[in-house]
């Protein structure tokens, strides 16, 4: 691959407020196996950021690294001026980051209600207003709150997973391929929900293979390949970049 890496930090368009997440020179991987090399990334308050890239590029790994789920090998992750590198997931959640993993993301044997309660496990009590907010955003969840999550359809499960991550009203939500495997109508609905959440003030960092749609909707995008930064720009700009289209978006 070409090596015309655009330094991620330099060209950050200042679209939103304060810097929320700041990843610098991150090296990470699994066990001794390094996947990410020298990755930089920023998310600002209320911003909607998308990561795209080929399979195995390390997109999910980056998400997991932010969330303290990989072996840290170098670099820093800062969240709201605080260094969160190497913290455990439950501590990071406490700081206001929510994460929806790629697949297998509901507790199949628990009811919808219990799944949501688990989302607020670190609090002493279930926050009623947050629960109401989630139910308001995803009415289907309130309808089905006694149902075992495992018996819900794929799309409903995806919403439940998102609802659970919203229970702590995070200021940053990490979404790993929220539309994967969804039928077209649900894909649209899902993207709409994400827009809504973002508009309500939550910053989004999302990985998507449905790259065109994702880049169309987001504020800013990153292209990751081979565990390294490749490009970053506003979503539309990336979408229109000939090189990016050719190499990563299937023309």
């Amino acid at each position, binding site marked *: 691959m070409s090596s015309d890496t655009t330094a991620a930090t330099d060209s950050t368009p200042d679209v939103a407020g304060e810097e929320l997440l700041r990843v610098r020179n991150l090296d990470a991987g699994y066990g001794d196996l390094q996947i990410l090399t020298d990755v930089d990334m920023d998310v600002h308050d209320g911003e909607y950021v998308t990561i795209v890239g080929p399979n195995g590029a390390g997109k999910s790994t980056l998400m997991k690294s932010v*969330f303290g*789920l990989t072996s840290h090998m170098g670099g820093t992750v800062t969240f709201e001026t605080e260094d969160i590198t190497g913290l*455990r*997931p*439950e501590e990071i*959640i*406490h700081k206001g980051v929510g*994460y929806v*993993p790629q697949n*297998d*993301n*509901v*507790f*199949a*044997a*628990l009811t919808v209600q*219990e799944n949501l*309660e*688990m*989302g607020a*496990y*670190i609090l002493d009590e279930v926050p009623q207003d947050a629960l109401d907010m989630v139910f308001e955003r995803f009415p289907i969840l309130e309808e089905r709150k006694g149902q075992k999550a495992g018996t819900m359809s794929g799309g409903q499960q995806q919403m439940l997973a998102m609802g*659970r991550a919203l229970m*702590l009203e995070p200021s940053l939500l990490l979404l790993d391929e929220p539309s994967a495997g969804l039928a077209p109508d649900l894909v649209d609905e899902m993207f709409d929900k994400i827009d809504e959440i973002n508009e309500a003030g939550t910053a989004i960092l999302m990985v998507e293979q449905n790259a065109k749609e994702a880049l169309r909707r987001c504020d800013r995008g990153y292209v990751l390949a081979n565990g390294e930064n490749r490009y970053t720009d506003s979503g539309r700009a990336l979408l229109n970049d000939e090189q990016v289209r050719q190499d990563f978006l299937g023309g």
Partner: protein
Amino acid sequence: MGIAETYSRGRRFAVDRPGALILAFVGVLLLGDLLVGLATGQTALSDVGSLVWDGLMRGLVIGLAGIGLSMTYSILNFANFAHGDFITAGAFSGWATTYVLAGLGRADIGALVLVGAGGSVFGGTLGIGITGTPLAVIAGLLVAGAFTIVLSLAVDRAIFRPIRDEDGITLLITSIGVAFALRYMMQFVFGSNVRGTTAQPPSFAVYLLDGAVRINMHDLTLVVVAGGLMLGVHLLLQRTKLGKAMRAMADNEDLARVTGIPTERVVRSVWVIGGGLTGVAGYMFVLWKGTLGFNDGWLLLLLIFAAVILGGIGSIYGAIAGGLVIGLTASLSVLWIPSAFARAAAFVVMIVILLVKPSGLFSGRSTA
């Protein structure tokens, strides 16, 4: 519901579940044989009563000891072969306490701490029992639970935690290593002889038509303790956040971690609850049968496995129900087959149920 419908349902059942049908048939056959025996006076009702009672007691011990195993099995995802030796360790710690409290000043302290190793002091001579030395017994019970908690936390910390992410088989093999080390360490310290631990407990007879079933105070203690603990654990897991977190972890551990459930803390809680129950079970096992040897837990372990699997891994009701089935099978089977096959019969029942219902009687009902 019409007759035709009943018939067709029955037919469908027969076609779908031939195994279950055969089982039911065998069950009816055995029951018939028993009834004939009772009717002709060949089998005494009181004998059957005694066997049932014995089976119930065994079942309670197995069920109580099975809860801890079932919890670690479902939440930590491996079959812990060291569980039997946790039972023994709990029993030794608790009984050392009981001996010391009951025998202080009457016997050499070393002999008491070693639970009368080498026949140096007898539980019977010290008059140990729920009626004779109730405080010593209760203290022993508590120490057994506490010690086993500490032991299992320590073992987890040193041995299981570093390989937590490995697959269940790796952990299983490791637990076999733990079992060996623990068991023979206990033999090294406490010696290999079996000792009697209690005085004859007072008993009373319940009269049936042609005789009586004897029930003693230790049986009743077992019923009370086992029943209370089972209820307590049930409430704990149903009513508290911890219980839900455990079920969540049993369901999907990775997801639990990213949801912010402090998984290591939950694991510790599992060991605390499971270990406590295990230690108490070990103590009660010895109180009930009245003897203690370094091999006790291990010899019980396979039956516990049978019970847990039979009941459905992760289900507390399942562990109890499985325990009762296994206990009753081991006890009652002598009505039909030679006593040498009693244990074998329990295993056969387990295998048969696994084949008919591979996920156990109470499957799909995690931790409750």
